[in-house]
C-alpha cells in the first residue's frame, strides 16, 4: 500500500513539475509578443496572386505592392492629384511624347542596391520582356527607355499620351532591384518589393502577409509598425473574425447586409468612400435586335437603377449614369440627361413601339450573368433588371448564366446578346473608362459590341489633347454620344467599405481605392 501511494505521489509530483515548467515557458514565450497598439490586423477575402510588378494585375496584389514599393508619382490621399514620389521632378517634351524623370538621390532597396536610372530602365524593360498580363502598360505606350545620367531617365513614347503620368503611377512601373528579381521570369513569391513605406517580413500564401515599417523609407513614416493581412475564404468568415476580435479591420469584401448590420454595432466604425468601380450592361450590336438603336435606347430608358442599388445592394452602391464614374473630372450624368432618372417606362414604350414591338408582339431578349465572379448578389441583379424591363409590358426577358471562364469565352467567341460586366480602372483617367469599351480597336474583349467612326475619332483626339479643358469637352461629347447610342448601359458605381474597431483611425478611401496602410493607426 505504501509503495502504491508513493508511486502515485511520484507521478503527481512529476506531472506538477512538468505542468509548471510548461506553464512558465508558455508565459515567457507569450510575453515576447509585440504590443497590441503597434500591430493592425486587416482581414480580406481577396488574395495575393504574383508579388511581382511584371505580372501582378489584380486589385489586392496592387494594393500590397503600393505599400511595399512606389512609383515615380503617387496619389495624394483624398484627391486625385499625383505628387512626386521616386521622381523628384519631371519634364514633358515634344508635346507629350518624351517624359524625362529626375530621380531622388540616395534611395536604396532592401538589398542595398541604389535607385538609379539604370535600375529604372532595367525594371521597365523587364516588364516588356516578361510580357506578363500587365505588360501592355509598357508595350502599348513606350518606345524606348534611355539613361540620361545616373539619376535621370528618359521615356520615349510611341506617340504623345496625355494621361501618361497616370499610367506611370501604376504598380507595373514600380522600380525593383535587379539583385532581388530575375531578369527574364516572373518571381511570384518574391518578397523583396521596391522602395515603399513597408517591407514584407513574412508571406504564407492564402494564410497571412506580415508587413513591417521600412526604417529607410524617405517619405512619411508609417503610423503603425506592423500590418498583418489575414486571408479569409468568404465574407461570412471575415465578418465573424471581426466580431470575434481576431482582426481590427475588415476590408474587401463584406456582404451588403453585413455592412448594414455592423453599422448598428457600437463596437465598430464603418468607413465609406466612393470607389471608381463600375458595373454596366453590354448590348451586343452585332446581334439582332440590338443592332437597332431604338431597342437599345428603350432598354436604357426602362432600366430601374434604384431597384438594383437599393433593392439588391441595400444602398451600399450608387446609381450610375455614365461610364465615367461620379467624382472623376469630365463626368456628366449623360444617361440621366437623356432618359431621366429612370425608369422612364413611357419613353421606353414609345421607343419600342417605333421599333415595331407591342404588348402582343413583345421584344424577347436573353440576359446573361455569371453567378460568382461579381459576388453572391449577381443573380438578384439580373432578376432586378429583368423585372424593370418587363414592367414595360412589351419586353420578355430570359435569364441565363454561365460560370466565369465559360462566360468570358462565350462573350469573346460566340458573342452573347446581353451581358453584365464590371470594371476596375487600370489607371485613374477618364480614358480608361471610355476607350476600352467604345473604341473599335479596343473592345474586342467584349465581343466588339459597338463600332462608330465618329466615336473613335473623339476618343483618339482626347487621348492626345494637350490640355485638360479640351479633354474634358471631348469626354463630355463621348458620354453624350454613349447615352444616345446606348451600346453599354452603366448602372452602378461601387462604394468601398471598411469596417473597423472603434479605436482604429486613419483609414482613407478615395477613388484610388487601394488602402494606404501607412496612414492607419490605433488610438
Amino acid at each position, binding site marked *: 500500500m505504501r509503495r502504491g501511494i508513493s508511486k502515485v505521489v511520484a507521478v503527481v509530483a512529476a506531472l506538477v513539475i512538468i505542468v509548471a515548467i*510548461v506553464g512558465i*515557458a*508558455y508565459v515567457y*514565450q*507569450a510575453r515576447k*509578443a*509585440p504590443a497590441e497598439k503597434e*500591430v493592425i*490586423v486587416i482581414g480580406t477575402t481577396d488574395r495575393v*496572386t*504574383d508579388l*511581382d510588378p511584371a*505580372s501582378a*494585375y489584380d486589385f489586392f496584389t496592387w494594393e500590397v505592392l503600393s505599400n511595399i514599393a512606389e512609383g515615380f508619382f503617387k496619389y495624394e490621399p483624398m484627391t486625385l492629384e499625383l505628387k512626386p514620389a521616386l521622381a523628384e521632378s519631371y519634364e514633358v517634351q515634344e508635346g507629350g511624347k518624351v517624359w524625362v524623370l529626375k530621380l531622388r538621390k540616395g534611395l536604396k532597396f532592401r538589398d542595398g542596391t541604389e535607385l538609379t536610372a539604370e535600375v529604372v530602365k532595367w525594371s521597365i524593360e523587364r516588364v516588356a520582356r516578361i*510580357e506578363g*498580363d500587365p*505588360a*501592355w502598360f509598357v508595350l502599348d505606350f513606350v518606345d524606348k527607355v534611355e539613361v540620361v545620367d545616373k539619376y535621370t531617365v528618359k521615356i520615349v513614347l510611341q506617340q504623345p499620351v496625355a494621361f501618361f503620368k497616370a499610367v506611370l503611377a501604376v504598380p507595373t512601373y514600380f522600380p525593383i532591384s535587379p539583385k532581388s528579381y530575375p531578369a527574364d521570369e*516572373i*518571381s*511570384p*513569391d518574391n518578397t523583396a518589393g521596391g522602395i515603399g513605406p513597408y517591407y514584407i517580413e*513574412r508571406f*504564407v*500564401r*492564402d*494564410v*497571412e502577409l*506580415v508587413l513591417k515599417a521600412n526604417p529607410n523609407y524617405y517619405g512619411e513614416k508609417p503610423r503603425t509598425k506592423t500590418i*498583418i493581412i*489575414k*486571408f*479569409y*475564404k*468568404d465574407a*461570412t*468568415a*471575415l465578418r*465573424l*473574425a471581426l*466580431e*470575434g*476580435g*481576431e482582426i481590427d479591420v475588415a476590408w474587401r469584401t463584406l456582404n451588403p447586409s453585413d455592412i448594414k448590420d455592423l453599422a448598428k454595432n457600437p463596437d465598430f466604425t464603418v468607413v465609406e468612400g466612393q470607389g471608381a468601380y463600375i458595373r454596366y450592361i453590354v448590348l451586343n450590336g452585332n446581334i439582332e435586335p440590338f443592332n437597332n438603336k431604338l431597342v437599345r435606347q428603350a432598354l436604357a430608358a426602362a432600366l430601374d437603377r434604384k431597384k438594383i442599388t437599393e433593392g439588391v445592394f441595400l444602398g451600399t452602391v450608387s446609381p450610375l449614369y455614365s461610364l465615367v464614374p461620379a467624382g472623376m473630372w469630365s463626368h456628366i450624368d449623360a444617361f440621366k440627361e437623356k432618359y431621366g432618372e429612370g425608369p422612364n417606362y413611357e419613353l421606353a414604350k414609345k421607343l419600342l413601339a417605333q421599333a415595331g414591338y407591342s404588348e402582343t408582339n413583345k421584344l424577347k431578349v436573353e440576359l446573361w450573368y455569371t453567378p*460568382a465572379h461579381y459576388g453572391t448578389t449577381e443573380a438578384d441583379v439580373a432578376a432586378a433588371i429583368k423585372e424593370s424591363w418587363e414592367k414595360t409590358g412589351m419586353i420578355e426577358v430570359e435569364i441565363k448564366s*454561365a*460560370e*466565369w*471562364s*465559360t462566360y*468570358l*469565352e*462565350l*462573350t*469573346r467567341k460566340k458573342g452573347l446578346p446581353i451581358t453584365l*460586366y464590371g470594371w476596375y480602372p487600370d489607371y485613374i483617367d477618364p480614358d480608361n473608362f471610355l476607350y*476600352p469599351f467604345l473604341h473599335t480597336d479596343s473592345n*474586342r*474583349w*467584349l465581343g466588339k459590341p459597338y463600332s462608330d467612326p465618329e466615336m473613335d475619332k473623339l476618343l483618339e483626339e482626347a487621348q492626345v489633347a494637350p490640355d485638360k479643358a479640351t479633354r474634358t469637352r471631348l469626354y463630355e461629347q463621348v458620354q453624350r454620344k454613349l447615352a444616345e447610342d446606348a451600346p453599354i448601359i452603366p448602372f452602378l458605381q461601387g462604394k468601398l467599405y471598411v469596417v473597423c474597431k472603434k479605436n482604429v483611425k486613419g483609414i482613407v478611401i478615395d477613388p484610388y481605392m487601394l488602402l494606404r496602410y501607412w496612414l492607419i493607426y490605433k488610438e
Partner: protein
Amino acid sequence: MVSLRVYILTRVLLTIPMVFILLSLVFFVMRILPGDPVIAIVGMKASPEHIERLRHELGLDKPLWRQYIDYIAMIMRGDLGRSMIWGKRPVSTEIWDRFPATLELTICAFTVSVLIGLVTGVFASTKPGTKADVGLRLFSIVAYSLFIPLLGMLLQFTLGVKLKLLPVAGRKSPLVQIDRITGLYLLDSLLTLNLVGFVDALRYLLLPSITLGVVLSGVYTRLVRSSMLEVLREDFIRALRARGIPEGQILLRHALKNAFIPVLTMMGLQFSLLLAGAILTETTFSWPGMGTFLLERIEYRDYTTVQGTIVFYALLVAMVSLIVDIIYAYIDPRIRY
C-alpha cells in the same frame, strides 16, 4: 507472410492502371468542360494576341492527343508540371504548401469522430433498448445529417463571437509565428518547442475539427453499436462473464477488439472521404487547405494543377486503403491474403 508480400505488391501494381485511368478521365473531362483556361487566367481585359501567345506558351495550341501524350510522359518522369496561373508555380509546391493543412485537420477531425463514435457506440451497446440507447441512435442520425457550414457557423457564433472562447477562422493567430518544418502546425510547434504556437494552433484547430468530427461521428456510433451488440451475443462473451471477468474488461479488451474490424473498414473509407470532403469545413473556417484550393483551380480551369492534385489524391487513397488492409491482417489473424 509471403502471401501478404505478394498481396501488397499486387495492390501497388494495380494502383498504376487505376491512376492512369483516373488521370485520363480528368484530362479529357477538364477539356470537354466549357471555359477557356487562358481567358479565365488573364481575365477580360487581355488582347487576343496576348491570349494566343499564352495559349502557345502553355502548349494548348497543340492537338489534344499531343497534349495528352506530353502530359503522360511528364507524369511518368515523376513531374506533376507547373500551374497554369499566377506565376506558374510547380504543382508539387502548391500541394506541399496546402496539403499539410488538410492533413492536420483530417487527422484531428478523424480522431474526434472516432472517439465520439467509440464512446457513444460502446455505451449504447451496453444498454440496448433504453432511453440512452435511443437518444444516442437519434444523435447519430442527427449528427450525420447536419450541414457542415450550418454547424460550423453555429459554433463560430456561440464559441467564437459571443463567448470569445475560440478563434473563428484561419489556422493560427496573426501575432504567432510557427516555423515550418512539416507544415503540420501542432507538430512543428512541438519540434521547435514553441508552446505559444502549439496552444494557438490547437485553439484554431478545435472548431473545424469538432464540426467535421461530430458530423462524421454518427456513422461510427451506429456501426460500433451494432457491431458490439453482435459480438456481445456470442458464446465466448458469455464464457468470459461466467468466469467472473469484470464487465469493463470484457467490453474493452474482448468485445471491442472483435467488433473493430467493420469499424476499421469504415475508418479507411472515411479517411479518404475526409481528405476530399473537407471542402465545406475549409470554406467555413477559411482553412487554407487542399479542398478550397482544388475548387478554386477547377473554376479557373487550371488543368495541370487539377490533374496533378487528382493524381496525388489517387495515390494517397490507394496508400491508405492498402495500409488498412495490412492492419486487418494484424488485428485479425483469421484474415489471409
